[in-house]
């Protein structure tokens, strides 16, 4: 691990102005905030992350979960994944989020990992994590080792000729389906970014993964009020029964009235370069009867633009079945 200066932030504004001196908030950032540390420390030990300054934000007052006036939920960036998963309001109104959180990592890691940190979780692509190998995300312009390499676990949606790395988070898939808003405080004040705009496609700048700018601090995530009468579900498929990243996952929210689907939100994990919302699937579900034919049609629509690599062609069918099963479960 490279040497770094360590400091404890007692004030968000000062932490933000210190971090704003970094040339980027993306790959290669010289200043990093640390909260749970589960991603950052892992990558610092691999020399993938080499900050010269680490600012501990654990003592900032950002660990509350509270109702918003309109009946939604405001989640502090420092709320631990385990606390969020077991929060009574999350379990009652946003089951998909609780299920997604509990399907990720381990009991120990969930006690450490935070809401803000999970949003910024990095890909598990083996080439990104290995500094001996070319990787456009880690070192722009060096090439993508995965496209002609080990790509079984990597993305089939949202890829580019420069990067096919998968976003590994389960929480982010649930937040996408719930249409969460990310509250960011930076040097220019506070801004609210819909989660659909928070993550960037790799394109020809795979080192840029989010809209985060130098100094930006995620302070909260806001969930809109739960859709009346809707049910939600998270299904995760993986190589092991537990403690493994998704090969394919589905987060769905469905409301049914008089035998017709009146509200549908669909996102997939494990298959996209970012948490993958599927408006195509949602459109195929809207107004239709909740049956196997509808679900299979929606799943086919969701994977219509899939671009498999040499080793991950199986993910196309797996993702369809995953989505179909999740929809069947929630509509049962």
């Amino acid at each position, binding site marked *: 691990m490279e040497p770094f200066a*360590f400091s404890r932030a007692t004030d968000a504004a000062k932490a933000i102005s210190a971090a704003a001196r970094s040339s980027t908030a993306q790959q290669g950032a010289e200043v990093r905030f640390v909260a749970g540390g589960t991603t950052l420390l892992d990558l610092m030990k691999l020399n993938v992350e080499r900050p010269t300054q680490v600012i501990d934000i654990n003592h900032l007052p950002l660990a509350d979960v509270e109702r918003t006036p309109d009946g939604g939920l405001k989640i502090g960036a420092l709320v631990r994944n385990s606390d969020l998963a077991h929060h009574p309001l999350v379990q009652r109104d946003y089951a998909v989020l609780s299920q997604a959180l509990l399907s990720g990592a381990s009991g*120990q890691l969930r006690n450490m990992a935070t809401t803000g940190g999970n949003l910024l979780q990095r890909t598990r692509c083996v080439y990104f994590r290995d500094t001996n190998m070319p990787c456009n995300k880690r070192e722009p312009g060096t090439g993508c080792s995965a496209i002609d390499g080990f790509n079984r676990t990597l993305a089939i949606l949202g890829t580019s000729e420069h990067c096919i790395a998968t976003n590994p988070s389960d929480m982010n898939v649930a937040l996408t389906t719930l249409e969460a808003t990310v509250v960011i405080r930076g040097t220019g004040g506070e801004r609210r970014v819909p989660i659909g705009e928070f993550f960037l496609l790799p394109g020809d700048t795979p080192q840029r993964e989010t809209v985060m700018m130098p100094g930006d601090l995620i302070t909260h995530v806001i969930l809109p009020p739960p859709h009346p009468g809707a049910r939600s579900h998270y299904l995760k498929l993986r190589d092991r029964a537990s403690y493994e990243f998704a090969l394919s996952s589905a987060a769905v929210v469905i409301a049914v009235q008089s035998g017709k689907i009146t509200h549908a939100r669909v996102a997939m994990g494990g298959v996209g370069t970012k948490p993958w919302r599927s408006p195509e699937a949602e459109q195929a579900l809207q107004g239709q009867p909740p049956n196997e034919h509808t679900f299979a049609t929606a799943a086919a629509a969701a994977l219509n633009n899939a671009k498999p690599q040499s080793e991950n062609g199986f993910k196309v069918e797996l993702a369809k079945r995953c989505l179909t099963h999740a929809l069947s479960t929630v509509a049962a």
Partner: protein
Amino acid sequence: MSEKKPGDIVDIQLGRRNFLQIVGITGAASGLGLPIAAQAAAIAAVAHSAADADGLVSVQLKVNGNVQTLKVDSRTTLLDALRDHLQLTGTKKGCDHGQCGACTVHVNGRRVNSCLSLAAMHEGDEVTTLEGLGQPGNLHPMQQAFLEHDGYQCGYCTSGQIMSAVALMKEPCGPANADVKEAMSGNICRCGAYSNIVAAIQQVRKA
């Protein structure tokens, strides 16, 4: 191993620390990241810089009930602080990347991977290691159950397994063996003593 004196370890660390400080200065000057002047300004801008003039970070934490004040290289993980600075070697280093669970300890009553946490992040925290659970002649019920059920073979993962299992008692977890297996999936046993580990945990849960 049993003849090793704490003083030996401290001497070794001082040597390593000096070496790393020299490497650190060279590394910063080689142009990775901010210039040194900008770094100093950036640090000053944060309300509370934890580093002393010698570049070490001070941290005070309570370990197994005892207040400890440490001065550590900023890179020191909680795991390395426990093992190398406080000689609490009951906590094991396995993968050092949060994948195996051998380093599991309790921080403020909750289980965490001590390898993925900086010691400096634990100012004011209460840490419990295996040594704080029980001792020979006065074992914690979970330690006793692991003995009775032969919940180990080589024993390297056992400390982490027991720390995880004890924390599990206070977590939401269903009654079935499958629930225990899911809750314990962050602790890997290379020898495959899983069924005995589950039996030990279930005995304590039902007691």
